């Protein structure tokens, strides 16, 4: 009954972990491996991360490596950049992606551009983590996904795990990557005890070292009739819809992009080539974002593969409303996904 998560006392024997615990496991393993890894951010120490991104790490690694910061995102993200330039591998948490507006310059004009501006002579091996997403009435400034914004701006990789195993594997890959990686975790997939969650926010997680390559999508469900391309929490909604519709003979393939940058365009093309029908589901804003990019990927390759108009299910260019009924009306909930799949199959 508390938002504060409790650390796992001992190594779990059951390898089914929540997404947050899988993420923490990857961080801990890499911190063990590499003393240059530190984790900085607001409330990442004693609190363990508002969304349990660092639960237990302070006890394990102490305050010199798990470091609470002032509410000075520009300063401490910049600090991460400078430390990375000098060869450390900092992980820096921006508590909510929504707060990018106070520190985007460090992120997009510095973290993401220094390597290029230096002609490849300076690397910035840092990870920027942030929570994303809505669905629990946190209002217009605390519910955004914004991955389209990060993915639009060049020089940073962007990963968006949807499940515990990928959360671990992508975190490991992100920490080891020599480029800056933005790691966006949806609150609704973290498996938090105090928030509604999809059943898949707890799952099997490989023991020991586990790396998921950045830039590789996963076929979350194979199917033949329609391709649903999506990421993060929406993967689960898409899977739920696919299960439901399979009973009616509609066999949907669900592609979990996992990374937006680099984008696995081959995976998208391969699936749509097979199904000829495309639904893109995106919890970020509809226009000028991920959904358009996925669609363009297909039709700049070959528009004739499409047997019907594509369907986009996203937040319809409106701030996220507070009231539950309004919020659920704009989020890509299963009902909207199902309707889109039916339309594209009928069309």
């Amino acid at each position, binding site marked *: 009954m508390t938002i504060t998560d409790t650390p796992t006392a001992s190594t779990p024997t059951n390898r089914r972990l929540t997404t947050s615990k899988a993420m923490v496991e990857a961080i801990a393993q890499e911190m063990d491996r590499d003393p240059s890894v530190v984790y900085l951010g607001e409330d990442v120490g004693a609190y363990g991360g508002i969304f349990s991104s660092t639960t237990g790490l302070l006890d394990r690694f102490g305050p010199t490596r798990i470091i*609470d910061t002032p509410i000075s995102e520009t300063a401490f993200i910049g600090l991460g950049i400078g430390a990375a330039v000098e060869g450390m591998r900092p992980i820096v948490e921006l508590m909510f992606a929504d707060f990018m507006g106070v520190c985007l310059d460090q992120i997009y004009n510095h973290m993401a551009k220094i390597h290029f501006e230096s002609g490849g002579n300076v690397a910035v091996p840092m990870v920027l983590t942030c929570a994303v997403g809505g669905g629990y009435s946190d*209002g217009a400034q605390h519910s955004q996904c914004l991955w389209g914004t990060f993915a639009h701006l060049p020089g940073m990789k962007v990963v968006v795990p949807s499940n515990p195993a990928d959360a671990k594997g992508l975190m490991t890959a992100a920490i080891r990557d020599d480029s800056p990686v933005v790691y966006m975790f949806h609150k609704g997939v973290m498996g938090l005890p*105090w928030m509604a969650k999809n059943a898949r926010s707890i799952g099997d997680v490989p023991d020991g070292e586990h790396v998921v390559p950045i830039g590789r999508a996963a076929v979350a469900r194979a199917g033949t009739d329609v391709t649903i391309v999506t990421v993060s929490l929406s993967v689960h909604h898409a899977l739920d819809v696919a299960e439901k519709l399979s009973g009616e003979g509609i066999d949907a393939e669900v592609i979990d992009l996992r990374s937006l940058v680099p984008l696995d365009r081959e995976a998208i093309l391969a699936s749509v080539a097979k199904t000829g029908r495309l639904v893109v589901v995106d919890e970020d804003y509809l226009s000028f974002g991920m959904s358009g990019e996925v669609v363009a990927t297909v039709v700049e390759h070959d528009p004739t593969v499409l047997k019907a108009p594509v369907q986009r299910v996203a937040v319809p260019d409106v701030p996220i409303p507070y009231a*539950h009924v309004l919020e659920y*009306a704009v989020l890509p909930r299963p009902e909207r996904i199902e309707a889109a799949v039916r339309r594209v199959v009928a069309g």
Partner: protein
Amino acid sequence: MTTHAPSPTSSTSSTGRAGSAGLDPAVRIGLYETMVLSRTYEEAILREYHADKGPGFDIGKGLVPGEMHLSAGQEPVAAGVCAHLTTDDAVTATHRPHHFAVAHGMDLHRMTAEIFGRETGLGRGRGGHMHLFDPATHFSCSGIIAEGYPPALGQAFAFSRRDTDQIAVAVTGEGAANQGAFHESLNLAARWTLPVVFVVEDNDWAISVPRDVATAIPSNADRAAAYGIPGERIEDNDVEAVYDAAQRAVARARAGDGPSLIEVHTLRMWGHFEGDAQGYRPELAEVPEHDPIPRYERLLRDAGVLDEDAVSRIRATASERVEDAIAFAKNSPLPDAATATSYVFA
């Protein structure tokens, strides 16, 4: 325009003080009333918030879903400052806005309806408790740390362009005083002599991060010198000291002499947000005994300004107003899902 706190009456001093005997009784009662109303309000919100989060605690459930940041313990700040304002003055609050909203005289019905996400709410249920916008009281707030300061400058700018004596009060927490917007706002307001009163609520904590872990100096009031404006720190959550300091700052702003900074050492009695178990907080057990409301009540009783009857009446009135507002909210219609994309553009 509504005056929402009894103004000093025939006080012999310009500070609202009745000589050395302390503040005018009417002012004191007003401060007490405001604090009681605010606390009563938040206790009711607390009750409603937790009423239906179960089984377990699901933050997205219930009549009042989402994050809930309550201000219990910080009432002296809002009461002491807003006592000098009318609803023509602007107040920009934070993610923890209720005490300022109440003290500034916001309509409790529409405020509560907003918190309950109803169509009758200030924002027709679009905003929620961190986003209370009320043109009638020039009130606004923001969930982004320190980013409520800059718009307050603009309200002050508009006021001074129109040659009114309206002012803007901008509030943040002590954690927010390390955010860039704090610095930029103080410099700009100072340089342009804008009628702003900057208020910092130092409740010792920014979620789980203690002020001394985050802030390089003990008092943010000392930061006023970086902008050449007066800075004052009020210790001990003392509502009358806040009242006095705010009186000076408000007068200065109204006179066109520019901004001031007031930091109040106050107390976050409850969690950062509801659900926060505060395991990080060593002094947790001692918190209740520092509650500023019983303390002020004792002081006023001892001074003969309040008696049992008056206290009961004040509490009963507060309770009635609050329950009335809660009932209004609960009886109000939910927004229509079909209008979810309305109000993006004017």
